[in-house]
């Protein structure tokens, strides 16, 4: 089974005996409550699934593990060029054909009454700008496309 974590995609196969799962000298007893045993200590874990993602509370830490379906590539856009929140476009600093450098402020948008800068994560050429100043955008909208040169 594969999970997408903050640390990349991780694969795991654990052994199971009734309600008890074991892996790497750790065991989990999962019934109505979840108990984790590691390093000789028991910890209660709280877990819930939101969409495809398991959210866990383990020893004070909050962790997320997204289920990766076999054969389906999770298209996680790491370019950061999508709208992080629904909001309004305030400023567009580049147009199609412009060269951008890593760190350039490409676009400024307003969400939740605060201004947010959309910053280039790589050098490249702007292929298209999909919105104009004043446009309302939804969360996840692709704001512009940059091709690496």
């Amino acid at each position, binding site marked *: 089974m594969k999970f997408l974590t903050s640390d990349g995609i991780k694969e795991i196969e*654990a052994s*199971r005996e009734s309600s008890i799962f074991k892996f790497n000298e750790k065991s989990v007893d999962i019934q*109505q409550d979840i108990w984790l045993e590691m390093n000789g200590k028991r910890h209660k874990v709280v877990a*819930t*699934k939101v969409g495809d993602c398991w959210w866990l509370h383990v020893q*004070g830490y*909050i962790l997320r593990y997204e289920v990766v379906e076999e054969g389906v590539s999770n298209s996680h856009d790491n370019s950061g060029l999508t709208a992080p929140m629904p909001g309004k476009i305030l400023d567009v600093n580049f147009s199609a054909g412009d060269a951008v450098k890593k760190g350039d402020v490409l676009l400024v948008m307003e969400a939740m009454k605060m*201004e947010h800068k959309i910053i280039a994560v790589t050098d490249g050429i702007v292929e298209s700008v999909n919105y104009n100043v004043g446009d309302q955008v939804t969360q996840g909208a692709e704001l512009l496309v940059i091709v690496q040169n």
Partner: protein
Amino acid sequence: MLKRTLVANRGEIACRILRACKEARIEGVAIYAENDTGTLFTEIADLAIPLNGEGLSETYLNQEQIIGIAIDNGCDSIHPGFGFLSERADFAQAVIDAGLIWIGPSPEAISTMGDKMTARITMKDAGVPVIPGEEVDGGIDDVLKLAPQVGYPLLLKATSGGGGKGMRAVHRQEDLEHEAKAAMREAMNAFGDDRIYIERLLTGSRHIEIQILADKFGRTIHLGERECSVQRRHQKVFEESPSVAVDSELREAMGVAACDAARAVDYVGAGTVEFLVTPTGEFYFLEMNTRIQVEHPVTEMVTGVDLVREQLRIAAGEPMSCGALSMRGHAIEVRLYAEDPTNNFLPAIGPLSRFIPPTGPGVRLDTGVREGDNVTPDYDPMLAKLIVWAPSRTEALQRMCRALDEFVILGCVTNLRFLRDLCEHPDVVDGWTTTDMIEKLWPDGWSDSVSQDILDAGLLVSFACESTNYGKKQMSASSVDEHVSIFELINGRYP
């Protein structure tokens, strides 16, 4: 004595005020926009009236509608909370003109302090020290002209601002025009007023504020300080009382200055005078907040005074109830935001699928949400304020760490782990808190350091959860349609 109070606010602070009303045997009336239907504060209220319209200006900022609801429902008073209409002199005046009691200072006091330039001038005249800077009277041209006289680094602030909006730090001349325009734009959007002014940015300073109370019998007292230096994007995230930087001598000097500031505008009610304190112990007036403040609980914890209850008492024309005050122990508040601390504290949204707050001695949670609620982009992303009290600062930090570890919030990204990290950072432990510390400590952004052991454990738990379809089975087992014997269930769950 007040009989029925309308609370012109929502969320956490509406809950706080409605609870105080309940304790004072005053009926509390909530108003709510459609997207707040069924939220906690509407349940706590004795009466909850829906607001017509969409968006802030038609709902929580709609003065006419709010006053109309108060009158139609037999209210005798309005409490504005913080934010929204709390510092709008015209609203205070309209409430008074409608024959209702305004739970706050006079409209004159609000407008004097609300206009940051007028406030500066009034404070200068009252002998309260102000930060070196320039009052700008025009548009962008005046800003560009006056900025070099103030010198860099400088801070651009919205004249009718607050809450960090419309505020920009400028370190170099070449950034000035761009930042000034951004500040003016933000100020226009947030306050409908794009005037800004310029102040010297005093780096390495602490943000320390004094809580005051004044009644209609001529008594003005201070309730000690709150240290609010730890900020991100000029918004506070960690507040405490007392401040490690304030000894009894400085406390007294700042307390006297704060009371002078209040008296200069004939202040009545609860208010806060904010100061910037330099590393050498000089203090300068920043602004006065003419309302109850987000971080008021830390003062309540160390002084034992119920500030909201005192507001109700003072507004009703009674003398304040507190006598000689002393500060006892140490209190800390952290603000829990739905935001991503690993991504420049960008606001986050999502369902609060699990929300299990900490309990135990010395722990207080002021919140407007509970499990099952949805965090939407409609309002401020602050979810809750977690406050602890303990006999000493060290014990208060330990208690806060324990409480944050206990706190389960799943389904929506929050700054919980960031706050936990902050509470153990040596600079915070040693009390070296300054307004620029977050940028300095995490210049490339913050990330959670989780041990490999915990990450592996999480992976195993996720595997177990996914394999057993955890959570879903419970639902079907408890569903009445399945006709499962209760004894079978018990046996299955507790072998």
